[in-house]
């Protein structure tokens, strides 16, 4: 059996986040994520980060799994911490070779990083606590355009087929002595393998469409869903959105 990099690997666990109605979960966390990326200062950003970590803990997702997913996104954030301190004008901390590190820059860099980190952490209790197909259904229920829902649905279904297909091609290459090196030849071969995968996917798309038509596909597939809001769903929605609103409102209150 192939090991798939699945986002919903731990969707079968049991936690308040797992039991949370997927529709309410998506709406509540999206509001919170927007609030988190809009927090104006570092103090609030750190509170947001603590909040995000708490939600992650409540979701009972294993730390290793969480770090695996956070790691990659964080690679994109690191440049901000490095570049910002040297590009934002303000109070000088120190300078060398004509590069000046400023206090404001450092703060801004960290602020951006903390916001991003919090947002990424929040994606996990939102997405990884339901089976992905349930999340897609919830998006459909939330009136996301049908075309997009279908794209999600088919992408989710076929990404695994393509992974297996590429693995097969790759193994066939290795079995005939191909070695991955950083030379033009290796790059060329990988390009060709990807090209083959592309052509195969195109042909498969054709066959899938035939199969869809054979079962009466009319460009607007419907699925059966059973979502029901319970009291706890309203409570969690209130807690999350309440947290989001306070993150945004608190700075104005302080000013007053």
């Amino acid at each position: 059996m192939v090991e798939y990099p699945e986002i919903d690997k731990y969707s079968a666990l049991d936690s308040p986040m797992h039991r949370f109605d997927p529709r309410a979960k998506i709406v509540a966390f999206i509001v919170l994520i927007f609030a988190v990326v809009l927090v104006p200062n570092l103090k609030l950003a750190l509170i947001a980060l603590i909040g995000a970590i708490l939600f992650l803990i409540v979701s009972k997702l294993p730390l290793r799994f969480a770090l695996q997913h956070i790691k990659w996104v964080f690679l994109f954030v690191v440049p901000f911490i490095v570049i910002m301190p040297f590009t934002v004008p303000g109070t000088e901390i120190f300078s060398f070779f004509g590069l000046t590190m400023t206090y404001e820059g450092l703060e801004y860099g960290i602020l951006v990083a903390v916001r991003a980190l919090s947002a990424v952490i929040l994606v996990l209790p939102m997405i990884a606590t339901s089976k992905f197909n349930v999340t897609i259904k919830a998006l459909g229920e939330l009136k996301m355009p049908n075309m997009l829902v279908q794209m999600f649905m088919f992408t989710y279904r076929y990404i695994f087929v393509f992974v297996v297909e590429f693995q097969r091609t790759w193994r066939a290459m290795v079995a005939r002595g191909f070695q991955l090196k950083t030379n033009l030849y290796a790059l060329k071969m990988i390009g060709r393998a990807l090209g083959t995968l592309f052509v195969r996917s195109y042909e498969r798309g054709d066959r899938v469409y035939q199969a869809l038509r054979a079962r009466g596909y009319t460009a607007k597939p419907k699925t059966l869903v059973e979502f029901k809001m319970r009291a706890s769903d309203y409570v969690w929605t209130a807690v999350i959105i309440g947290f989001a609103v306070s993150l945004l409102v608190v700075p104005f209150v302080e000013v007053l």
Partner: protein
Amino acid sequence: MREAITVRNLSYRYPDGSQALEDVNMEVYEGERIAVVGPNGAGKTTFMLHLNGTLRGSEGQIEIFGKNLEKMKREEIVKEVGMVFQDPDDQLFMPTIFDDIAFGPINLGLKEDEVRERVEKAISSLGLSGYEDKSPHHLSFGEKKKASLAAVMAMEPRILVLDEPTANLDPRSRAELIGILNELNEREGITMVIVTHDVNAIPELADRIYALNRTIIETGTPREIFFNGALLKQNKLDVPDVFKVFEVLRCFGVNCEKIPLSLDEAVSGLTKMIETEGGHIHLHIHEHTHDEIEKWRSKYEHH
């Protein structure tokens, strides 16, 4: 008997201009099991795709229970003709098995409880209970194959068209699938058209064979087709292993009047033979055995 499928003078040309099908004629009666055989590239899959209007021939016409396919609405066609494709990954396009099986019934415009009923029935009749919430990529090939059959059966078609249903299955899954198909045919009277290379399955799966190689070359019962040496050779077709074994036994002097095509037939044939010959059968090498074996060999050499 009522004609379920009537194909008249069907021709089809690929977009690149090469002729895929030429003047194909076929009559399939209600409740009949038909095998379509032919070498690779003979146009079998292309032909199959005409039966539910996926492809439209340049000439000729197809009737489904007397109705012209051209004039039928899409929903009407898919309700009558279910199609099981060769690669279950092409056919299982929804994220879970439940959603996939429900897909067809929903498109037929059935009510929710009716859809659920159909899904449940299809799942239990194919032994897929417990798989409802699984994703196709977590299933074995055999399970996927059964799921794609369930997805089609949930639409309750009167005609079932299958492309290589037994290909790539392990022996046990293959036997299971053959059993399921025959049960569907017996219990629900479903008409079946099976495109296949699996000659060993044909005696069990088909009442009649159409040999296709761009056009219909021959039609007949499995027995008639498998005895037609010239036809087999010209079209790179093969006969069941049991059949070959008994042909060899014949060269060794076994006097069987009716060569069996399947294991079941072999058992009853052997029993009958032993009974009539006083409790045993004789194998011996006589003066023509060697020549006959040579002749037999050359019959199956496709050079």
